[in-house]
């Protein structure tokens, strides 16, 4: 039985597959992947994930707006932002909207798993 449901949000197919392939937690079940904020919201309502990885720069609805909407639906959700935007202002804005962690792209498998582990500790 999986303890946590994971939703992966990124406009890059490569990154979505990379995150899905590289996460090494038996207790995490990937319940969906989305390429933008609009898709993510739709999937979020259908699958009710506990943990979300979220890109920032995406078409239709960016990650910042999506975080705000997701947290509005489920305040207890844990969100890890995974973005190439390495500036502090972006990280602070994401955290203010409700993100719980921030991982810069590019990342190693180890960095990804450490960031997810940290996220799940708070879930």
């Amino acid at each position, binding site marked *: 039985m999986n303890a946590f449901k994971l939703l992966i949000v990124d406009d890059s197919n490569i990154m979505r597959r990379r995150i899905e392939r590289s996460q090494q937690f038996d207790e995490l079940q990937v319940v969906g992947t989305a390429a933008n904020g609009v898709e993510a919201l739709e999937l979020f309502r259908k699958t009710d994930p506990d943990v979300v990885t979220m890109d920032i720069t995406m078409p239709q609805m960016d990650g910042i707006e999506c975080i705000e909407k997701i947290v509005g639906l489920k305040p207890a959700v844990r969100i890890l932002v995974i973005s*190439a935007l390495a500036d502090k202002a972006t990280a602070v804005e994401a955290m203010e909207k409700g993100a719980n962690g921030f991982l810069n*792209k*590019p990342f*190693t498998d180890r960095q990804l798993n450490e960031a997810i582990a940290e996220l799940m500790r708070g879930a």
Partner: protein
Amino acid sequence: MLQEQELKTFVAGTTNFFEVSAQQPATIGSPYLVTKGKPGMHDYTGVIQISGKREGIVYFTAPRAMLTVLLMKMQETDFSHETMKDLVGEVANTISGNARRDFGQDFVISVPSVMTGSGKFEIPESAGLHPFVIPINWRSHSAKLVVALK
């Protein structure tokens, strides 16, 4: 005129992608200024536009063979045209993210766009930009980082 620190930021963004994603660092060839003609393009090119304190473009352009090996090192099994575009877009994204961190809000940096097909990048001559080309060597392949700012 392009400043050394600006160039370092763009180069670091590019080489960092190879070092972290493929666990194999890229090396830098001898940079050169294009004063006549246009800098070349390989099969896939990720472009960012810069405005604000400086204006111009920065692009990373790579041959399909290099991107294929890079994808293999990233454990990818899809080597389609769309995946190649996705990959150069991600490299450009990393360059853009680095620049935003180092240059702050004085630089307005666009979301990357992707172009395909080798040839000559059309930087308008009237723009007064002199592109600086930095060869990016990785394994047996060579790509280019082109920085054209004024």
